[in-house]
């Protein structure tokens, strides 16, 4: 049986973790590779790096990060931030990423998803959707870290990118991100029901019940969280045990 995944996400900028990871045994809490190794050992199911200050000039640091992580961690790695073209996908895959996440570029031109999926396969093409509630039961796509409205309906957009070949949706609720109030469950459920591909729920996790709800109520195939793991509130194994106790199939180590 396929297991529900727990994915710790590390926000990086210029090759460093933006918020340090609070593990007692880390030599350098700001080194993404050190953090990745710790999560690998802790039994995380996947890792995600998001370059939040991605620019053309610092592309190299992200490639280098993927490369160094793949040397140490033999587990799945998704990398996103500033990904614009099939060439970016290829470079990140060659560096050691398994999946590459598009965000603004997919909004600007959904065909970049088709080009990437046709060449590299849908399995490595993730589309990160940042959505905000605009009225009850209606969500719109926002870009540039949630600052720029696009007027595009989130459900329509999810269907579009999946029809172009996206293999997974990384869904972040901009209303909930950073609030620790839990996932936006109606949004997660609406997107999960609308597409055939796995949906990763993201944004707002404050406790372990939130992770459970993302799956049981939101219909997510995977849950992504940052702060609750980075700050040591909960371990990956505690989260897995809690979800398993709620009846969700988990990979226990």
């Amino acid at each position: 049986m396929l297991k529900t995944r727990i994915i710790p996400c590390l926000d990086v900028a210029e090759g460093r973790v933006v918020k340090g990871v609070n593990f007692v045994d880390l030599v350098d809490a700001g080194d993404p590779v050190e953090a990745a190794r710790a999560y690998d050992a802790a039994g995380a199911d996947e890792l995600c790096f998001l370059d939040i200050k991605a620019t053309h000039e610092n592309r190299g640091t992200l490639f280098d990060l993927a490369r160094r992580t793949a040397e140490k961690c033999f587990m799945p790695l998704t990398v996103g931030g500033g990904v614009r073209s099939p060439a970016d996908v290829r470079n990140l895959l060659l560096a050691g990423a398994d999946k590459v996440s598009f965000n603004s570029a997919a909004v600007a031109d959904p065909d970049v998803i088709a080009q990437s999926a046709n060449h590299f396969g849908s399995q490595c093409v993730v589309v990160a959707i940042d959505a905000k509630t605009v009225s009850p039961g209606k969500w719109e796509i926002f870009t540039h870290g949630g600052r720029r409205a696009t007027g595009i309906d989130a459900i329509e957009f999810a269907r579009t990118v999946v029809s172009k070949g996206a293999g997974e949706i990384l869904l972040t609720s901009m209303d909930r991100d950073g609030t620790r109030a839990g996932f936006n469950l109606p949004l997660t459920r609406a997107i999960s029901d609308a597409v055939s591909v796995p949906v990763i729920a993201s944004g707002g996790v404050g406790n372990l019940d939130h992770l459970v709800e993302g799956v049981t109520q939101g219909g997510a195939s995977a849950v992504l969280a940052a702060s609750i793991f980075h700050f040591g509130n909960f371990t990956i194994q505690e989260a897995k045990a809690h979800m398993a106790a709620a009846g969700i199939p988990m990979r226990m180590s």
Partner: protein
Amino acid sequence: MLTALIDYESGNLHSAQKAFERMAADLPNEEVVVTSDPEVLRHADRLVLPGDGAFPACKAALVEKTGLYEALLEAVEEDAKPFLGICVGMQMMARFGHEYQTTPGLGWIAGDIRPIQPTDFSLKVPHMGWNDLVITGAHPVLAGLKTGDHAYFVHSYQFVLEDMTQRLAHVDYDGEISAIVSSGTRIGMQFHPEKSQSTGLRLISNFLNWRP
């Protein structure tokens, strides 16, 4: 002994390379090389076809490199060098792939690559994540592996075999999905051993130790 990871401009080559290098380092006189040079394939002792990508694009890339496809056939078919296909590299072992279009594969294992189509609509495609293996066949490369061990999968197409004795392991996903196939000196894994933590590293080490 030289293990050649075939670079056909597809696949997560770097992580596969690092995983093989890591396990080769524990063995005497083992070397790992990433190559698209037909001459290197001829000198290699074993071959690995990694994979990440669409079947037609991967097949085209394999054929387009001058001499590469011929050298692969010579090494595996004539010289019977141990071969490991990973993910799409495993699917390449089939007679035909049906992703986007019908494309001939290497034809080493009787069967076709067909889309995963769960009848349970709550099940997503790609089949993505950790699934527990059901081991049904004995093989030196599977030494130490047991039913219930998890491996990391990410694929939308599956290997449908004609001869089920060529299947060594499967997983459950609204029916059985082939996880490990083999025929003679060739073995294929649908999941990514290089991404399957300790279980995957063990399989890689076993492959490096395999002397068929």
